[in-house]
């Protein structure tokens, strides 16, 4: 009797009849990933549209915060509560770099030397794994920075390299968003790419009467393009999470 029960149970598992277990996907990172309130629109972190593309077995918990580096994310005690709430099978998507690499004097509060950046990322990975959750490393999304010949420049060089190296040594999946987004923005070119960043003419949008010329942060459209890149890399790398991305359904026009 007991044997039959076990047999039935494993048969269901093999056949995939059991509904997928509900999981949480935590996102930790900076202003390019975080949530924004309506008074900031069209400013949009890529975590916002990203959340729209999963089925109901997934809850996206976007804990990213503007202006944070790996160092300040830890020192403000933003990480420990996440580790506490992690369950087996949950994911942690990790994207830092913009603020870690900022060496200008006004950003001394967030600057993180490379060695510390490496150590902090390793801590995120190790502690995620200690709860049987799954870390995914993401290189920092590109800025809109073109040279005079219209070629896009790489602005995260050293910091993106560290992310890739940790991925190699600890066997963590790496989504190379820096490279993917640089290809995409480079293809759009210096002019058209303005349309995906926070470039707002004065008087154009009620939230920004003075306008905005920002080449780091995305509008709602750019954020969705970045989310699409990440979703497609999850599929390309065959991370199990891909099974929980929404399947298209026919919609009426």
């Amino acid at each position, binding site marked *: 009797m007991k044997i039959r029960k076990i047999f039935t149970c494993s048969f269901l598992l093999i056949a995939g009849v059991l509904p997928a277990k509900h999981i949480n996907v935590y996102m930790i990172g900076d202003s390019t990933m975080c949530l924004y309130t309506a008074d900031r629109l069209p400013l949009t972190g890529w975590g916002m549209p990203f959340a729209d*593309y999963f089925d109901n077995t997934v809850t996206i918990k976007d804990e990213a915060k503007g202006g944070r580096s790996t160092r300040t994310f830890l020192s403000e005690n933003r990480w420990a509560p996440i580790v506490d709430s992690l369950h087996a099978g949950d994911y942690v998507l990790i994207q830092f770099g913009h603020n870690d690499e900022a060496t200008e004097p006004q950003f001394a509060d967030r600057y993180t030397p490379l060695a510390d950046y490496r150590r902090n990322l390793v801590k995120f990975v190790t502690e995620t794994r200690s709860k049987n959750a799954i870390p995914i490393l993401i290189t920092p999304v590109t800025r809109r920075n073109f040279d005079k010949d219209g070629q896009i420049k790489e602005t995260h060089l050293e910091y993106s390299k560290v992310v890739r190296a940790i991925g190699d040594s600890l066997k963590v999946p790496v989504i190379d968003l820096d490279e993917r987004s640089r290809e995409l923005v480079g293809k759009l070119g210096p*002019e058209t790419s303005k349309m995906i960043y926070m470039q707002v003419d004065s008087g154009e949008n*009620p939230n*920004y009467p003075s306008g*905005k010329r920002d080449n780091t*942060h995305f509008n709602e459209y750019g954020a969705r393009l970045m989310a*699409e890149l990440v979703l497609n890399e999850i599929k390309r790398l065959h991370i199990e999470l891909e099974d929980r991305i929404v399947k298209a359904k026919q919609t009426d*026009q």
Partner: protein
Amino acid sequence: MSIKDRSAYPETGWGMPFSNFFDQTVTVDNRAKNGRSTKTFIAEGLWQPVADNIKKGDYLIIQFGHNDEINTKTSYTTEDDFRSNLTRFVTEAKNKDVKPILITPVTRRKFDTAGKIVDTHVVYAQIVREVAAKNNIPLIDLDSISMKYLQKLGPEQSKLLFNHLLPGENPNYPQGKEDNTHFSELGARKMAELVLAQIRIVQPDLAARIVKGKDIPIK
């Protein structure tokens, strides 16, 4: 204009971002629906609840045309019926001391071979203008204004405003999409911005309820 189902994202109606730009004294109640003409909006019983619910001091923003003007669609509405349906919306609103605002149908992305934008709403947009003039109510000529905006962008950049997706780009459209009528989230917001700017001109009392921007710095 309508609120889209999540499974249709990134297709976005301009009413969606529009509702984010008013202060707390305003509730934007978006009753627009894909595929509807003035005729089917009435026939399907979508108008009556609006007529029943609107009350003194409310505004009624009316934009139809895309589905009225196509004579191969079941939603096709003759020019005369389009005129009388719009007049009905306006009259019923006015009878309840509600302020109607008429909007000409937002442009499609259609350029001629010389790269000049083509007006695809010539006849029906003109009817909207005439109904507004005859009833002495505010008009937002979104057809003309959005055409000018698309012309400024040109055939290539204007693609970003519409639901154009490469195959494999977006989970909701595995085969891709080249829709030159329905907007992306960017196009929807740009159209909302154009409408908001016109409200400042034609309906200052409503414009007073548009959010006062705080220019919040980005970290």
